[in-house]
Structure formats: structure tokens, C-alpha cells
């Protein structure tokens, strides 16, 4: 045994610099761009000015874009609620057939990049060549299309079928927590079935319903891809597409900065409202170990309900995936897939293209780099906040999830402003994309790491310390092995988020730093649907492989636990 003579140095935590560094990195990651964004929006030739705000808010075209965004977001939220709530109830509480499969398919819709879904629906329901419209014309002999996807209702539809999973997850999780005995307690006191639903079940699920709705609205507000693909050809703008167009030549950065603010404000307010809703009624009261949940028999409604579910999933998954597959293997995607029309040229054309190759390499580099740095940073931050190591740890927890309110396009504007000037000249490099992804994925990464570390009782570390292991040794030999699978899950979440990112990339890329999503977006301009389909499938396969790896490693359904993430 060593003789431990107390010295002053022994009281110093040698790991402190690491925690402080992680905290500083987070502060810089978030505050620097947002600070610049705010500054830029009020900077005039002669100092402070509100002229940019006056211009963007006074311009009728921009007012129209704002209004379109409001319409899009509220309607999408409502449609998502109408789809997600019944689906959640059906899979969580009834004897609907194929419940597990339906859950998995909802998750498939959840991880599908919305812009890919939008492309698929262009191929399905474009007014002229759209597959469904051609089918309709052939069957009825009429000349006008059945559906025109290039319209506000079309856009709302496509956005809603990829945002309803947010509502679904919120409600399904809550329903899963309400034990049947709470409902039985009401029945035994004389409440009828309908009264139980109205007075017990619904009020308990209501916060989840509302907050699911808000999450869906948030997603719709922040989306760039779907409006860019569907609204621009239809001749209207939303806020996100408008922000993007400010960056077309000549760039008007001050206008973009000022126009970002209403969107940022709206998302921030919505998120605060959602937290309030969830915070007020204790979800803890909903819990309870070994709670029994009775399955509600649908009787004759079983198969009609299944049909409705399959209809929704058909629109979100089967039809889009089908048309993407068909387009990937066809010479002419609009023609039937016959032997003559079958080809592998799309694949060779796509993967032999130098642009695509470099985009794949860029995407992979960024995905791996961001996932590694993101998982490490998120884990360190979650450790600091969970173990309350440094003063102000609550602020760190807040900042780590704050980027949830920053739409990708707005984040891109902010990063563009912050990193096109000394000392950080990053525009035109992969580093600015890296910073964008790291910031955007921080909330998801942090939440995942936080859950992981919450599961590791501090006493496990203390038991090591008291037996003679120092802070670093305990981290290495006890904390790290226990957190390993959780950290891998964080890595996967970040990786999936990065490889599908479009809305920030579309503003921050340069000719040498294109990523897959940007290439897909460019291919649209050239009408290369075959190549779009190939790259889209490639992206989906990478995503699903990552999900499967993650679920195998963790041995549980990880996607089900995820509640909020960034929009693609």
C-alpha cells in the first residue's frame, strides 16, 4: 500500500479540463452562429438598423411565403394528427392484425428522407407523366389528371405522410404507459365505455396528442426538400425555399438573416409550448411496473381498420419505394417495366459519375466524422450534466437540445455568416458542413447519451473510486464499458441524420463539397429520375443497415424511443 500523504493537489479533479473543453465547444457551436445571425439581421451601413426587417416583412411576395408556410405547417400537422393518432391507438391497444409489421413500417416512413418521398410522389402523381395519373387516364379515358402533386394540397399530403410518425410515436408511447387498471377503476365506479374514454383515457393522452401535433408542425415548418420539389414548380414559395433563394446569385445575406428570425421565433415558441404541455401533467403517474393493458377487440372493424392502415403505409412506403425501385431499373421510368425497358445502366451511370463518386465519399467522410465527434461530445456533455460536475450544467443541457428549434436552412444561413470571415474561413470546405451537421444532430445525440448515462447508477462509479481507482480509470473500466452500446446507438443516430441531410447542405455546399442529397437535388434539374432513384435507394439501404446494426447491438427497438429529431 502506498502511503497517501494529503497534498493540496489531491483535491483537484484532473479530468476537469476535458469537461470544460466540451462545454466550451458546445457554447461556441451554438452561440457563435446564432450571434452572428442576429447581428447580421440588424447591421446597416451606418450601424444598427431595422431596415432589413422592414423590407422582408413589408414585401408582399415574402408575406405570401410566410403565409404559405403557416398554411402548410398547420394543415400538415392536422393531417399528421388524423393519420397518426388512430394508427397509434390501433397498434397500441387493439387486436388489429399485423401490429408489429405496421409498427415497423411506420418506422420505415419515419427514417425515409422526406425529400426522397417527395421525388417519388412526383413520379407517382405528377400531372402529366405521373404513374397514377396515367393509370387513371387509361382506365377512364379522360384527359385531365386525377391528382396534381404540384399544389398546396399535394405538398401538404406529402409532408404529412412523413411527419405523422412524430404524432404516432408520442401517442403510442403514452398509450403504452397507461395501465388498464386506471380505466378499470373508472368502470368499477360506474363509468360506461364511452365515459371512460372521454374522462380518463383521452385527458391522459391529450398532452401527447397536442405535443405530437406540435412536433409535426415543427417538422413541416423546417422542411426544405419537399417544398423545393413540389411548391417551386407550382409557382409558390415557403419560408425555407425563400431563404434558399436569397442565396441564389446575388446573395442577399442580410435579408436572409432577417427573414430567418420569424421562423426561428415560431419554432422556439412551439417547442416551449410542447415542453409545457408535457411538463404539467406528470407522466410518472402514468407509469407503473407490470401494469396490465387490456387489448380492445375490434370485432368486425378489424379488417377495415387494417385496410386503412395499409392505405396510409401504401402512400408513405409501398408506392414510393415501388416507384423508386422501378425507376432505378428502367430505361424510361414512366413506361411499364418490361424486359425491353429493364436496364442496369442507371446504376453504372450513377456510380461511374465522378460527381456522384465524390459526393458519396464526402457524405461518408462527413457521416463518420460527425458521428464520431458528435457521439463523443454528446457523451461528455451528458456525463457533465448527469453527474453535475461543473457549475452551470443546466445551461449546457439546455444548449445541447436548443438546436432542435433551428431549422436546417436557418442554421445554414447562420453558419454561412459566421464562417465566411476571419478567423474562421470555412465556407467552401467540408468543415462548414461538418459544423452544420454536428450542431443539427446535437439534440438527438445528447438525448440518446443522456438516456444512456441516466441508466448508469453513479454508485457504480463511486464503488470503483472508494476501492482505489482514480477518476480516469473509473471512466475507462466502469463507465465506458457500461455505456458502450448506448454510445454506439448515439453514433448511429447521428450518422443516419447526417447522410440524409439536405436543408443545410443545400446552402453550404460548394462544387467540391457536394453530398449525396445535394446531388439528388441537382439531378432533379436535369430530370434524371433513374439516377435519383438509384441514389435514393442507396441512401435508404445505408439508413436501414445502420438501424439494423443498432437494433442488433442494443437488442431493442431503438427507433420507438426516439421522440424528437431534426428535419431533413
Amino acid at each position: 500500500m502506498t502511503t497517501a500523504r494529503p497534498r493540496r493537489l489531491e483535491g483537484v479533479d484532473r479530468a476537469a479540463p476535458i469537461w470544460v473543453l466540451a462545454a466550451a465547444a458546445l457554447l461556441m457551436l451554438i452561440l457563435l452562429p446564432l450571434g452572428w445571425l442576429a447581428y447580421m439581421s440588424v447591421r446597416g451601413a451606418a450601424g444598427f438598423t431595422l431596415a432589413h426587417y422592414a423590407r422582408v416583412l413589408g414585401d408582399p411576395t415574402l408575406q405570401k411565403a410566410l403565409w404559405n408556410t403557416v398554411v402548410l405547417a398547420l394543415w400538415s400537422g392536422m393531417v399528421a394528427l388524423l393519420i397518426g393518432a388512430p394508427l397509434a391507438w390501433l397498434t397500441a391497444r387493439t387486436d388489429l392484425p399485423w401490429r408489429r409489421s405496421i409498427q415497423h413500417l411506420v418506422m420505415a416512413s419515419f427514417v425515409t428522407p422526406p425529400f426522397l418521398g417527395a421525388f417519388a410522389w412526383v413520379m407517382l402523381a405528377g400531372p402529366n407523366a405521373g404513374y397514377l395519373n396515367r393509370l387513371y387516364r387509361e382506365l377512364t379515358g379522360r384527359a385531365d389528371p386525377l391528382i396534381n402533386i404540384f399544389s398546396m394540397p399535394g405538398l401538404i399530403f406529402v409532408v404529412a405522410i412523413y411527419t405523422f410518425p412524430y404524432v404516432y410515436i408520442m401517442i403510442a408511447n403514452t398509450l403504452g404507459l397507461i395501465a388498464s387498471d386506471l380505466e378499470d377503476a373508472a368502470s368499477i365506479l360506474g363509468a360506461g365505455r364511452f365515459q371512460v374514454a372521454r374522462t380518463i383515457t383521452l385527458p391522459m393522452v391529450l398532452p401527447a396528442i397536442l405535443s405530437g401535433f406540435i412536433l409535426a408542425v415543427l417538422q413541416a415548418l423546417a422542411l426544405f426538400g419537399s417544398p423545393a420539389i413540389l411548391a417551386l414548380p407550382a409557382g409558390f414559395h415557403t419560408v425555407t425555399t425563400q431563404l434558399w433563394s436569397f442565396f441564389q446569385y446575388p446573395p442577399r445575406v442580410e435579408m436572409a438573416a432577417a427573414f430567418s428570425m420569424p421562423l426561428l421565433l415560431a419554432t422556439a415558441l412551439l417547442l416551449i409550448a410542447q415542453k409545457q404541455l408535457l411538463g404539467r401533467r406528470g407522466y410518472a403517474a402514468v407509469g407503473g411496473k407490470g401494469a396490465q393493458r387490456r387489448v380492445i377487440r375490434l370485432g368486425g372493424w378489424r379488417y377495415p381498420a387494417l385496410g386503412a392502415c395499409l392505405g396510409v403505409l401504401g402512400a408513405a412506403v409501398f408506392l414510393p419505394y415501388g416507384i423508386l425501385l422501378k425507376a432505378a431499373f428502367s430505361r424510361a421510368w414512366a413506361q411499364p417495366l418490361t424486359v425491353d425497358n429493364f436496364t442496369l445502366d442507371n446504376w453504372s451511370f450513377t456510380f461511374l459519375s465522378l460527381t456522384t463518386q465524390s459526393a458519396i465519399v464526402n457524405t461518408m467522410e462527413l457521416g463518420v466524422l460527425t458521428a464520431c465527434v458528435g457521439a463523443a461530445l454528446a457523451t461528455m456533455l451528458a456525463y457533465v450534466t448527469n453527474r453535475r460536475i461543473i457549475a452551470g450544467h443546466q445551461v449546457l443541457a439546455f444548449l445541447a437540445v436548443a438546436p432542435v428549434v433551428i431549422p436546417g436552412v436557418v442554421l445554414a444561413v447562420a453558419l454561412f455568416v459566421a464562417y465566411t470571415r476571419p478567423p474562421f474561413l470555412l465556407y467552401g470546405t467540408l468543415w462548414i458542413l461538418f459544423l452544420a451537421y454536428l450542431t443539427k444532430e446535437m439534440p438527438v445525440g445528447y438525448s440518446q447519451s443522456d438516456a444512456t448515462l441516466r441508466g448508469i447508477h453513479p454508485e457504480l462509479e463511486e464503488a470503483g473510486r472508494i476501492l482505489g481507482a482514480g477518476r480516469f480509470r473509473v471512466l475507462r473500466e466502469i463507465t465506458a464499458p457500461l455505456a458502450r452500446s448506448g454510445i454506439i446507438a448515439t453514433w448511429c443516430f447521428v450518422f443516419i441524420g447526417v447522410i440524409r441531410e439536405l436543408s443545410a447542405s443545400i446552402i453550404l455546399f460548394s462544387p467540391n463539397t457536394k453530398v449525396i442529397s445535394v446531388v439528388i437535388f441537382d439531378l432533379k434539374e436535369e430530370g434524371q429520375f433513374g439516377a435519383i432513384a438509384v441514389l435514393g435507394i442507396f441512401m435508404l439501404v445505408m439508413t436501414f443497415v445502420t438501424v439494423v446494426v443498432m437494433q442488433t447491438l442494443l437488442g431493442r427497438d431503438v427507433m420507438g424511443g426516439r421522440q424528437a429529431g431534426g428535419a431533413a
Partner: protein
Amino acid sequence: MPGITITGLTKRFGEVGAVVGLDLAVRPGELVALLGPSGCGKTTTLRLVAGFLAPEAGEIRVGDRVLSSPALVVPPERRRMAMIFQSYALWPHMTVAQNVAYGLRFAGVGRADRDRRVDEMLRAVQLGAYGARYPGELSGGQQQRVAVARALVVEPEILLLDEPLSNLDASLREEMRFEIRRLHERFAITTLYVTHDQAEAMVISDRVAVLREGRVVQIGPPEELFEHPRTRFVAEFVGKTNLIDAVADGARSVARGDLRLRVAADGLAPRAPVVVSIRPHQIAIGPPAGAAAAPAGANVLAGAIVRASYLGEMVDYQVRLEGSDVVLRVTGPTPARARPGDAVAVTVPAEACVLLPAVD
């Protein structure tokens, strides 16, 4: 084998003082229980001793080594202590043997020696065949014994236990009390034991320190605490008791309305407010006519049974005293001899009436 000396220890969380000027001396080789209700500061005290928390004032010494003071806190890993946690804190990714061997790696013990000591210790806690298992494969009681083995194998100078039995079921808990006491007698390590269970504290400890609002209000062997509590709080917390607010009306007697009691004291100041504590099992209960058999000097009081609860090995009576608002709890033998409404006489020896200050 050093003891622990704590002087003026203070630790606040925000505005709340968890530990306020706490003094405590644990003699070498002694087992002292820190007993108190939740929020009394007992766990905070233990964590201060372990070095997981830094004090704001006061100091903690082991032998003549200062381990904690506001100016310096020796980190936990340099304290040569071991601790058994409420959650057991067994590392789920290590086998039982690896868990137990962990601390020996830092004690300069060679590999061969290490294996031998782990083996011996596992046999001492009756887990000789379980070294290769993982903690998740053991029952709660077995996990508890692994935690004990992991702490004892390093031959610590000081052993700390934080409510180690609170996760066990009642019968196992009772068995483990004797087990811990047996291990203490075998290894004689200076030990601090935190619990909120007074029966547990009394079975296990050499001395019990009762904590309240961050201070030690009384410390002593279990018998002393039980028989001579110094405050109302201690009397109520350690065992069941009847507390009667009264005033002195003679050198050796007190009164409450028409009720007069001879008590085990003399030289009481007249009209001084006091509290009398009477343990239920020291009161005898009998038919009204049986009063004549009472020893001289005992209080014989008439009353009526309000409630009689049959508990198997005894009967818990509530007796309303005649001409008084006092309801006494009395423990009687089984089978039950009186039923609600029956008139009875209760006999309270003067020495069973312990006087306490009216205010804590």
C-alpha cells in the same frame, strides 16, 4: 486500526443545511450506526466521510490523518476505505470474482495472492462456487454478499455502509443483520453504518448515533438509547413509547389534570413542564381488583380498553385512563385477557416513567 473523528462538519445543498456542525467520534474497531429519518443528513455524512462530497466547515480525521476539510479533500481512492452501497453497485460487466478482485489491483497485491484472497473471501460469504457468475445471475441476497465481499477483501481501514439491507425482503434482511454483525466481530473494522431502521441499528451496532436535522442528538449503546433517551425525539424514534406532557408537582411526581404519576427522578422543580416517556411493554395490565398485588411505589391507574389488537405473540392495547385524556398503549401477553369496553387496572413502575425535557 484507526478511529474516525468528525468535528464541526457542515455541508449545505443550496439553502438547506444537510449536515450542520456535526461532531462524532468512532473508536477504533467500533461499529457505529447513524440512525435517523430521511433528510436527517446521515447519508450526506457518510458521503462526506467517503470523500464524495467536500465539507464547507469542520474536518474529518482518520487516526491522525486529516482527510476532509474545507481546504482539502483527499479523493475517495486515497482513503483506504471500502463502502457498501444501497444499490450494491456491482459492476454488471464483470464476473463476481472480477468484482471482488477489483480493489486488490490498487492495493499492491500480486496476482496469485489476489486470486487466493478473492477465493477465501467468497467462501467467507458462502459464495465459493459463484466466482464465474455475473451479478445479474444472482439473487438479491447473493448480490448483497458479493458487495460485502468486495468491500472486505481489500482489508480497509474504514468500512462504510449506506442502508445496505433496504433492498432485501424482510426475512433475508433479518438474516443479513446477524451476518454483518458476525463479519464485524471477525474482522473488527472501524465501521459507519447508515440506516433508518432502528431495529437494524440496535442489532448491528456497538453504539447508535441518532441524527436529526444534520446533528447528532444522542449517541450511545442501544440499551442506553432505549432506556435513557435524552429527548422526546429519541424516545419516539427508538422503539414505541407513550409520551405524556405534564408538569412537576412534587420532587418525585408529575401531574396532568387529575392524573398523578410517581417518576424515576427527584429534585424536580415545582410547576416545571416535563414529558414522561413510558414504554408499552413496561406497563402491566390486569383486572381492576388485581391492583393490590402491585409492588410498592408503582403507579396503579384505572382505565378502560379502547382497542385491543391481537398480533400473535402479543396484544397491543389502547387504554383510556379514568378521569384523564391520556390514552396509553400497553403491550400484553397472549391470549388476550381484555376486550374493548372492559375496565382494567394498569400498573406503571416509577422507574419506567422516564423524564424528558419538555422541548427538544
